[in-house]
C-alpha cells in the first residue's frame, strides 16, 4: 500500500531488466514527473542511467552505445513518436514500458515499425500517477470538471490513473462513491468498467476483507482548501507551492542562486521526513536543533589544520558536512521565508478568524472579525477574499447574513473583480445546495456532546481547530458506520466487515491537511491502511484557479 515504493519498484525493475551498460531513460512530460518523484538523480545515476530524454525532443543524437529505457504513457502521440523512433533507431536496444493499458493495434503498429529488431521488451508497468507520500498520490490535473460534469478527456485520464494505482498496489476493490456527486458516480462506473474489462489483470490473491475504493467529490467540503495551514508540508504548499516536490523560491528576496529552486522530498531528506507533519512552532525548535548540530560539525575557522590527522579528519567529515550544510541552508531558507510571509501577510490573525469561521457558529463575532480584518491594510487581496468566501460558505443561509455588505467592503478595499467573483463562484461550487452533508453543524448526539465538551475545555490550538470533513468520513468508514444511503456501493455486493485497505480518491483535489488526517489515522488505527489521492494536491491559489 505504499505508493512511492510501488512506483519506485517499477522504475527499478525497468532499469534492472535492461542489464549492465550505459542507459538513457526516454520519457514523456508526465512520466518525467512520475519518475522524478521517486528517484533522485544521483540515485538513478548509480544504476548507470546517465541521460534523461523526452521522446518528443527532436534534438536527440544517434548514440548506438546506449540502451534506451522508454517509460511512456500510452497516448496516441507517444505511440507515433515511438514508431518514428523505431524506424530510425538512435539507440542500440529498446526496452519499452507503458504506464497503462495499451491497445493491441498500437502494439502491432509498433511491431511493424521495428524493422531493425531493436526492441527487446514491451510491457505495461502501471506507474501512472504522481506518488507524493507513501499514502498520498495525485494526478496533477487541474480543472477536471466543467461545471458539475466531467471533462471527458480528464475523466479517462482519471480513470487510467486510478486503475493504474489499483494495479500497482495489486488491489481489486469494492467501490463506494458519494451519492450527491454525479462526477463521483461517473468515475466509479468508469473504474468498474475497466476492472470488468481487464479482469485478467485484476486477478490478485484474495484477501479476507476486500479492499475498498471510496470516491468523493471536493465540492462536499470546499472549506478545507481555503484555510491557512500550519504544518510544515501543508504550509510550504500553501505559501510557496510544491510542484512535484519542487519549491520555487526565486521570489524570495535576496535568495542565493543555488536556492532558487529546492527539492523537498521525504525520501532522501531526513529532516523533512521527520518534520513534514509537525506544526510550525515545532519546526522552529527542530530547525534550531538542526542548526546546532550543524554548528557542531562545522569546521571551525580558528581551528587550524595543523597536523595531517586534522586534515584527514576534516576531509573525512567533509562530504557529510557538505550534505548537512545543504539541508540546513535549504530548510533555514524555507522556514525563514515562511515566517517572513506569515508576518508580512498577518497570517496568524487571518488564520485565527478563518478557523473561527470554519469551526464555530458565532455569527456576530465572526462577522465582526472579518470586518476588522478587511480593514487591516496588511491583509492581502487574496486573504481578504478568502475570508469572505469562508463566511459565504458558512453563513449562506443565516438569517442576518450580511454577505452583500462584505462584498461591498471588498470592493471598497480595492480588491480586484477577479477575486470578488470568486465569492459567488465558491458558493456555487460548494454551497449548501450542492453539499451532500452538513459541514458546520454536528449531526448526532455524540457529535454534539463532543462539541460541547470541546467548548468547555477551550480550544487546543486556535490555529488548528479545524478537522477536515474527510476525518469524519474516514472515521465512520473505518468503524463501518458510513451510511449507505449517502455513500452507496457500486454493484450488489457490500462489505460486511470493517474495511482494512482503503483507497480514497477526491475528485477536485486533496489538500495536505487531509493528507495529515489520513496519516494520523494510519498511525492510530491498527490494521487500517489508507491511501489518499486526488486529481491534484490543492492549496488556496490552485483551488481558486479552478473556480
Amino acid at each position, binding site marked *: 500500500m505504499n505508493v512511492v*515504493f510501488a512506483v519506485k519498484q517499477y522504475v527499478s525493475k525497468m532499469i534492472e531488466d535492461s542489464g549492465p551498460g550505459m542507459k538513457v531513460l526516454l520519457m514523456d512530460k508526465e512520466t518525467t514527473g512520475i519518475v522524478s518523484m521517486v528517484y533522485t538523480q544521483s540515485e538513478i545515476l548509480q544504476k548507470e542511467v546517465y541521460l534523461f530524454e523526452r521522446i518528443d525532443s527532436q534534438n536527440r543524437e544517434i548514440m548506438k552505445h546506449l540502451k534506451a529505457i522508454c517509460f511512456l504513457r500510452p497516448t496516441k502521440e507517444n505511440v507515433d513518436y515511438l514508431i518514428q523512433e523505431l524506424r530510425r533507431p538512435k539507440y542500440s536496444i529498446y526496452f519499452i514500458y507503458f504506464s497503462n493499458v495499451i491497445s493491441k493495434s498500437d502494439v502491432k503498429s509498433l511491431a511493424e515499425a521495428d524493422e531493425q529488431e531493436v526492441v527487446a521488451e514491451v510491457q505495461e*508497468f502501471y506507474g501512472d500517477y504522481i506518488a507524493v507520500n507513501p499514502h498520498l498520490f495525485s494526478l496533477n490535473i487541474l480543472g477536471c470538471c466543467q461545471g458539475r460534469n466531467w471533462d471527458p478527456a480528464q475523466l479517462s485520464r482519471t480513470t487510467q490513473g486510478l486503475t493504474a494505482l489499483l*494495479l500497482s498496489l495489486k488491489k481489486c476493490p469494492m467501490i463506494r462513491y458519494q451519492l450527491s456527486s454525479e462526477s463521483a458516480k461517473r468515475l466509479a462506473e468508469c473504474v468498474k468498467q475497466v476492472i470488468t474489462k481487464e479482469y485478467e489483470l485484476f486477478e490478485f490473491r484474495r484477501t479476507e476483507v476486500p479492499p475498498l475504493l471510496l470516491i468523493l467529490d471536493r465540492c462536499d467540503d470546499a472549506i478545507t482548501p481555503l484555510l491557512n495551514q500550519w504544518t510544515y508540508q501543508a504550509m510550504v504548499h500553501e505559501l510557496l507551492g510544491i510542484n512535484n516536490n519542487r519549491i520555487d523560491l526565486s521570489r524570495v528576496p535576496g535568495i542565493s542562486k543555488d536556492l532558487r529552486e529546492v527539492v523537498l522530498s521525504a525520501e532522501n531528506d531526513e529532516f523533512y521526513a521527520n518534520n513534514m507533519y509537525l506544526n510550525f512552532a*515545532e519546526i522552529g525548535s527542530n530547525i534550531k536543533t538542526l542548526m546546532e548540530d550543524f554548528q557542531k560539525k562545522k569546521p571551525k575557522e580558528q581551528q587550524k589544520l595543523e597536523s595531517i590527522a586534522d586534515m584527514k579528519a576534516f576531509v573525512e567529515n567533509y562530504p557529510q558536512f557538505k550534505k548537512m550544510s545543504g539541508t540546513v541552508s535549504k530548510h533555514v531558507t524555507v522556514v525563514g521565508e515562511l515566517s517572513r510571509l*506569515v*508576518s508580512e501577510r498577518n497570517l496568524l490573525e487571518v488564520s485565527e478568524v478563518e478557523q473561527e469561521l470554519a469551526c464555530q457558529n458565532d455569527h456576530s463575532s465572526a462577522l465582526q472579525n472579518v470586518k476588522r480584518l478587511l480593514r487591516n491594510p496588511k491583509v492581502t487581496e487574496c486573504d481578504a477574499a478568502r475570508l469572505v468566501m469562508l463566511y459565504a460558505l458558512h453563513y449562506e443561509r443565516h438569517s442576518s447574513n450580511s454577505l452583500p455588505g462584505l462584498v461591498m467592503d471588498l470592493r471598497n478595499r480595492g480588491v480586484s473583480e477577479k477575486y470578488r467573483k470568486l465569492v459567488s463562484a465558491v458558493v456555487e461550487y460548494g454551497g449548501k445546495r450542492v453539499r451532500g452533508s452538513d459541514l458546520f453543524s454536528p449531526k448526532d448526539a455524540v457529535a454534539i456532546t463532543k462539541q460541547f465538551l470541546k467548548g468547555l475545555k477551550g480550544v487546543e490550538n486556535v490555529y488548528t481547530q479545524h478537522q477536515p470533513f474527510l476525518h469524519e468520513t474516514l472515521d465512520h468508514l473505518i468503524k463501518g458506520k458510513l451510511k449507505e444511503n449517502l455513500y452507496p456501493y457500486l454493484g450488489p455486493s457490500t462489505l460486511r466487515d470493517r474495511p482494512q485497505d482503503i483507497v480514497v480518491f477526491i475528485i477536485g483535489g486533496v489538500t495536505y491537511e487531509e493528507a495529515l488526517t489520513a496519516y494520523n489515522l494510519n498511525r492510530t488505527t491498527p490494521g487500517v491502511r489508507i491511501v489518499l489521492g486526488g486529481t491534484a494536491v490543492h492549496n488556496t491559489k490552485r483551488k481558486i484557479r479552478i473556480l
Partner: protein
Amino acid sequence: MSKGKLKKFCKKVVGFILQRKSLVQKAKKAKNRLLKREGDDRAESGTQGYESFSYGGVDPYMWEPQELGAVRSHLSDFKKHRAARIDHYVVEVNKLIIRLEKLTAFDRTNTESAKIRAIEKSVVPWVNDQDVPFCPDCGNKFSIRNRRHHCRLCGSIMCKKCMELISLPFANKLTSASKDSLSTHTSPSQSPNSVHGSRRGSISSVSSVSSVLDEKDDDRIRCCTHCKDTLLKREQQIDEKEHTPDIVKLYEKLRLCMEKVDQKAPEYIRMAASLNAGETTYSLEHAGDLRIEVQKVYELIDALSKKILTLGLNQDPPPHPNTLRLQRMIRYSATLFVQEKLLGLMSLPTREQFEELKKKRKQEMERKRILERQAALESQRRLKERQNDLVSRAANGEVVSLRGGPAPLRKAEGWLPLSGGQGQSEDSDPLLQQIHNITSFIRQARAAGRVDEVHTLQENLRQLQDEYDQQQTEKAIELSRRQAEEEDLQREQLQMLREREWEREREQFQAVSLHTRTRSLDFREIRPFQLEPGREPRTHLAYALDLGSSAVQSSAAPETPSPVSALEPVRVWSGPPAFGQDPLPQSTVPQQTSLNPFEDEDPSSPAADGSASPLASEPASGPSACILKEYNPFEEEEEEAVAGNPFTTPDSPAPNPFDEEDEHPYPRPSSPPVPGNPFEEATCTNPFEMDSDSGPEREEAIEEELLLQQIDNIKAYIFDAKQCGRLDEVELLTENLRELKRTLAKQKGTN
C-alpha cells in the same frame, strides 16, 4: 581489613550513594516530564508530534515494503507481428545482397560490356521498356533525351536523375560482411543460398536501345534509390556491429574498476578495523598493500572518468551536446562513487601507532588476567579465612544453610558453595546468595583448572548478575520515586524556609562571617555525611531530607551553585546503572567498581568534549556563522510570539519555543537581588537543578572556565536528553545553554 581496602570500600559506598542519587534524579526527571506532559498535553494533542505515538497503527513509512505491482507483457504479441514484418524485410535485403554478389562475382573491368549486360540480365529479369512510359520516381516522361535505366538489382526502370550507383568496394563490403553475419542472423528463414535468383533468364527481354547507348561505367553497378537505401541501411548495421566507440571501451574499463572496488573495499575495511583495534589477525603489511591496491583502482577510476569527460572535446565538429552531457554524467557518477567509497576507507595505523595499539591491547589483556588472578588469590585467602571461621563456629550448621541455595550443583565434581566472606548480612536476597555461590564455584573450578566449567559457570553468573542488577534498579527507581514525591512536598515548605534563611544569610554576609559558613559546607565535609544513608539503607527518607536541607543551605548562598558540583552527578549517571550498588567485590566489573567514581570521568566526557569546542568558539565564530544567522527565523519570530503565537494555549505561555526570553516567568522570591543574573535563571529552569544543590557554593564572580565547563555539561545533558528523545527537556536545556553563552560573552566583555 587493610587501610587500602577500607578506602576502596568507602569509595564504593560513595559511588553507591551517587548511584542512588542519580536514580532519584532520573525518577524525578520522569516525574517532571509527566507533570509537564499534563501541561503540554493540550498543545500537543492538536498537533500530534512525530514521536508521540508508538502504538496503534503504523506510520505509512513503516508499511511493509510494497511488492512489485501488476505487470503485463506484450512482448510475444509484439514479436509475432514483428516477425512477419522482419521476415519480409530480411528476405528483401538478402535477395539484394545475393544479386549483388553475382553481379560482382566476375571481373567486370576485363569483360565486354555486352557480356556484362547478359550476365546482369541473367541475375534479375529486366522490366520491359514499353511498360514504363514515365519514371516511377520523379514522373518525367521517358524520351530520347530522357532515357530509361534499369536497376541491376531489382530490374526496375528509372531515369538517369533517379539512378544511383554502387561502387565495387561498397558492394564487396556488403557481400563479404553478409557472409559472416547471415549465418548468425536471428531471423528464421535465412540461408545464404536461398532460391532467389534461380529463375535467371526466364524472361528474355529485347535489349533496349537506350541501354546499349549507355556510357561505360562498368566498375559501378546501377541501381534504383530504393535498393540503394536498403543497402545503405544494411551497411550502417554492419558498421555499428563492428565499431565500438572509444567511450564504450573506456566505460567498460571504468565499470570493471568499480566492480573491483566493490569486492576489495569491504575486505580492506574489515582489516583496517581489526588493525586499528590492535588485533593481530591481519598483518599490517598486507593491509597496507591492499590499501594501495584499492587506492590505485580509485586513481584509475578517476583517470578513466576524466578521459571520458574530455573525449572528443578538441575534435573539429564539436560533439553533440548530448554526447557531452553523457560524458559529464559518467564523470559525475564516478566522482560520486569515489567520494562515497574512498572516504569510507579508514586509515591504517602507522607502524609505531600499531605497535602502541598492540601494546595497549596487550596491557589490557594483561590487566584482565592480573585482575582475574587477584580475584583468585583473594578467594583463596577468603577460603582460608572462612575455614578458620568455620572451625571457630563449626557447630553453627551454617554450611548447610549456605548449601541450601538452588545452585546448579554439579554433584559429581562437588564444588562447594563458599561464601564470599564479606557482608553476609547483605545476602538476604536469594539472588545474591546464588551469585556468591557461583562465584565460589568458579574459583574452585579455576583452581582445579577446569576451563570449560569455569566458562559455563561464568555465563551463569553473568545471567544472575544481570537479573539482580535489574531487580535492584527497579527497586531503586521505586524508592526514589517515593523520595521524589516526598521531596517535592518538602521543597514547598523549604521554599519559605529558604527565604528566611536567605535573609539571615545576608545579614551574616554583611557581618563578614560568610566565608567560614560556606566553607563549612565544603564538599569534603559533605561526603561523610552522605555516606551515612549508604550504610543504612533504611535511612533513605532521612537522606532525602538531608538532601533537601542541603539544598536549602546551598541555595541560601547569595551566589548560585558552582558548576563543579553539577559535574559529578553526571559522571555517575552515565555509568552502568547497577555497578555502584553491587556489593560484590568480585563482580564482573571489577575495574569499574574499584575506580573512584569521582575520577570516572570518561564515560560521560566524550559527549561533553565533542560538543565543547564548537561552543567555546561560538561567540567568536567567524563570518560563516553569521551568514547562517542572517537566515535565522527565530529573531523575527520573537516579535510575533508576543503578538500571539499560534501554538501557545491561551493560559500556558511557557511551552512556546520562541519567547522565553521575552516573557519568561520570574516567580522566584528567593532569587538573589542581583538583577537578571542569567545564572540564576539557568538553574531555575534546569530540570537537573538538584544536581547542583548539594554542592558547595562559591561567592566569587563566576569564572570563565567554570562557565565553559557548565556549558559542556549542559551540552552533555542535551545529548543525553536527545538520546532518550525527551524533546521538551532538550528545549529547556537549549534555552539554558543560550543563557550561559550570553553570560560567557558578558564575562569576556568585562574582563
